């Protein structure tokens, strides 16, 4: 059963927990605001009927190295959302275990029944209302003035905690972007979008007046899951064997099957038999966990022996007393 608690202390405990686990930001979104803004049937209560609080965590974007890598590499390693999910999943368990209130990790998935690109819950909205990010001109990607681009995850709980406010100021557009916009009519994100899915305007107050985002064009490039039915349809519609073969095995589509194969647990690169007989792999001094653990086991044994000896000394002393 849930116990009495101090909301401020709980919030601090949650923040300590998530930051220890790797989150950079933490906040609570106002539930009433979320329900009001979310489309019908898309608010938190649609998912957890007795929800009282929405807790949001943000983790940092890619490493500095990722930002310096070429576009293809960055496309693979720029995202850190799994880190955020892991933290939030842990937070849900933490809330239940520590405070006894039912909680859920909010699934970061699309709602197939709601329409194009409609998520089950908008983590972006949660984070923005919780004050740990603000919408940018780059397709409403949230930005944080101290941490830049972040990935977010949410937890719903039946525990009633005190919500935070949205950010007082939006870091976007940056002053240099405003300058570029006035010179060229574009911000860097607009200018460098590979599919030109971004456009908009900055007002006289140097704040966003309008932001246009062609999500279809963006997803067309970056979200392969939408390509799978396309590939299959192209295969069916192919005019000749070469076209059919290209539809399935063309280099642009191979990555799809590669990812599907990973998902299906297929072999990736190794059957490992070469490494099973490789003397370097099999005899490397620190490649063997048993050998690696020997020192630790030795220390444990020594500590146990020492404790035992100490205990024996104590017992002997007691008897002597």
């Amino acid at each position, binding site marked *: 059963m849930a116990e009495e608690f101090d909301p401020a202390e709980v919030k601090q405990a949650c923040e300590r927990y998530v930051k220890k686990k790797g989150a950079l930001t933490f906040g609570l979104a106002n539930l009433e*605001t979320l329900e*009001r*803004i979310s*489309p*019908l*049937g*898309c608010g938190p209560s649609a998912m957890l009927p007795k929800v009282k609080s929405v807790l949001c965590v943000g983790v940092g974007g890619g490493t500095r190295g990722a*930002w*310096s*890598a*070429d*576009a*293809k590499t*960055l*496309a693979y390693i720029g995202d850190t959302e799994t880190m955020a999910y892991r933290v939030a999943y842990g937070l849900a368990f933490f809330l239940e275990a520590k405070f006894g209130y039912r909680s859920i990790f909010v699934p970061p998935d699309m709602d197939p*029944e*709601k*329409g*194009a*690109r*409609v998520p089950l819950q908008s983590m972006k*909205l949660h984070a*923005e*209302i919780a004050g740990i990010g*603000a*919408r940018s001109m780059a*397709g*409403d990607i949230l930005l944080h003035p101290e941490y830049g681009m972040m990935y977010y995850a949410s937890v719903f709980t039946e525990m009633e905690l005190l919500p935070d406010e*949205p*950010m007082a100021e*939006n870091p976007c557009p940056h002053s240099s972007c405003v300058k570029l916009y006035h010179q060229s009519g574009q911000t860097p994100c607009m*200018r*460098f979008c*590979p*599919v030109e899915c971004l456009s908009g305007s900055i007002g006289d107050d140097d*704040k*966003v*007046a*309008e*932001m*246009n*985002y*062609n*999500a*279809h*064009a963006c997803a*067309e*490039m*970056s979200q*392969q899951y*939408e*390509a799978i039915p*396309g*590939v299959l*349809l*192209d295969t069916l519609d192919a005019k000749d064997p070469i076209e059919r073969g290209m539809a399935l095995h*063309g280099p*642009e*589509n191979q*990555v799809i099957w590669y990812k599907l194969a990973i998902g299906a647990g297929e072999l990736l690169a190794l059957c490992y038999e070469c490494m099973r007989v490789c003397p370097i792999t099999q005899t490397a001094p620190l490649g063997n966990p048993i050998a690696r653990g020997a020192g630790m086991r030795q220390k444990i044994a020594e500590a146990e022996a020492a404790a035992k000896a100490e205990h024996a000394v104590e017992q002997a002393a007691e008897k002597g007393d």
Partner: protein
Amino acid sequence: MAYGVTQQMIDTFGEIVFKLSLNKQTRRGDAVRELDFDILEANRDETGLTDEEIAERIGLLPEQVGVVRVFTERKYHKIDQHRRIYHLGGGKRWKKETYRSPAERLRFNEEAMMLREAINFKPELVARYIDDGYWINETLNGWLTDHAQNTPDAIAIIHPGGEVTYQELKNRVDQLTNGLLSLGLLKSDVVAVQLPNTLDFVVSYLAITAFGGVMQTIHMPYRDADIEFLLGHAQARAVICLPAFKEFQTAEVILSMKDNLNSLKHIITVGDSASEDCQSLQSLMIEGTPEIDNPPVGSDPFLLLYTSGTTSNPKGVPLTYQNMMSNARVSVDEFKMTPADCNLSAAPFSHLYGLFNFHVALNAGATNVLLPAFTPPDLAKMVEATKATTLFLGPAHATAMINAGLMDTHDFSSVRFSVFSGAACPQPMMKTYRDKIPGTRISQLWGMTETAGATYCRFDDAEDIPVRSAGRASPGDEVRVVSPEDGEPLPANTEGDLQVRGCSVFPGYLNNEEANADAFTEDGWFRTGDIAIIDGDGNITITGRTKDVINRGGVKFNPADIEDLLVQHPKVEMVAIVPVPDSALGEKACCVVTLLGEVAVTLEELCILLDEHKIAKNKWPERLEIIDEMPLTPTRKVIKGRLMDQL
């Protein structure tokens, strides 16, 4: 369709649904962060709606909206867009802001794909050519670009209008490449060229091939029917020609064919202006570095030549860079050609021999001298004026100059090397020619449209070899002589059917399965149709054509040596011996002649000549036909098929 959705419903509501959905999002101001619910509500339609909200808004069921939306999204969805990021590089590596998908950049016209489908080499042979370094990734434009970069001021071309350096040539080629691209021509599109050996020809050829096009040559003497057949068979998309040539109104005639030639879109005429419905070549000279989306590579076809058709309609012979470039590249060393050479081809560039010669000189970075039209005096003058060092000509060219005494009155001393090809080379002529240029070396080259320069004498060969033979196989090629009966290879010095295999041999005829079936053996040897002898050192001597062989009562003989004798008769200008049907013997020999003068020759007189040379009687012609004009190919080969039809 599901949920009562019709195609009409999709057509009607598709765009509306697509726009209202989260596919398209517009945000005004910063209403969420500022919690300005009035603005949020006012802008809700623009920020993207769920299917339920869209349904409510436009009066469909949510499920119907889903179907309409999916089909509309499908219409717009392209599956390979992630390539854009690969292409763009990202960050400071940003390349071009405009991205074009490979499918768009690398597209081909249907006719071009038909041509490419004719490229059909044997994989095991190709593996060998690549392993041995004959086939590499090289193109004409690559060679030109290299020379323009490395020796920009070297003279690439000498023509009647002056000299052109490699840099100037490259600039002109780039300009015309831009012009041809502006016409929408794509890789492997065929562009026919009917031009003499002029600078316009060279620039056109290099520009067509620079953007990946395929040049089809049309011999200058060809007229209406020949041109229409060739343009139609090749499915040419453009033609570059003179407005008129002599009495022939080239552009006008080709324009009149346009309705029958579905593929033909552009008629380009040399000069600054053009008649209506044509474009001038000059108008296509557009400044700038060409942006070629689909640049040519070594395995691409770049030439479409046609056989001269001595026995049937001309056959289309597509040739790839690897075919022709390898043949030219390996020949440079064999001919000892260097950038210092000044090379003159008397052969037309519309013919493989002329092009082969041009390629060799281009590869070497030498100067190519252009002789627009052969006349003996013009050739002699051009050699003297340009101090040509290498001369590629046919025996007829040399004979004409010798007979006219031009080699005695003009300075030929600069010519260090002369190559003969195109027809049989009489030994006396070869010796005379060599005697006229002390210190020069001579060579015979044998090749066909299908084989390029398959055999030739090397620069260093012993003196007697080029007089009596067409030399050894070009590097990367093999030659053999086989029995006409069983196809088995024959020992040295035995006459038989000549076959060639190697890196310069063509990949198969265009749209001619029947000819292709006959052309090659199972293991890739090309049946040349020539009869030859190969000596112990591998030097070949062509002795005739298999199709010319006469089967007289089961005894077969090659009439070539008889023709060589009869043409020496003082009353005879040209001679051809062809088989005619005979009820008793099956076939017998008919001698067809044109006369040198007014006085007719008799069969008896011809037989006396043969008797004097101890020719066996069964080879004597048994019928004589005197005609006014011998049917000749543009390369001056007798069209025996037409003679037989006439007889």
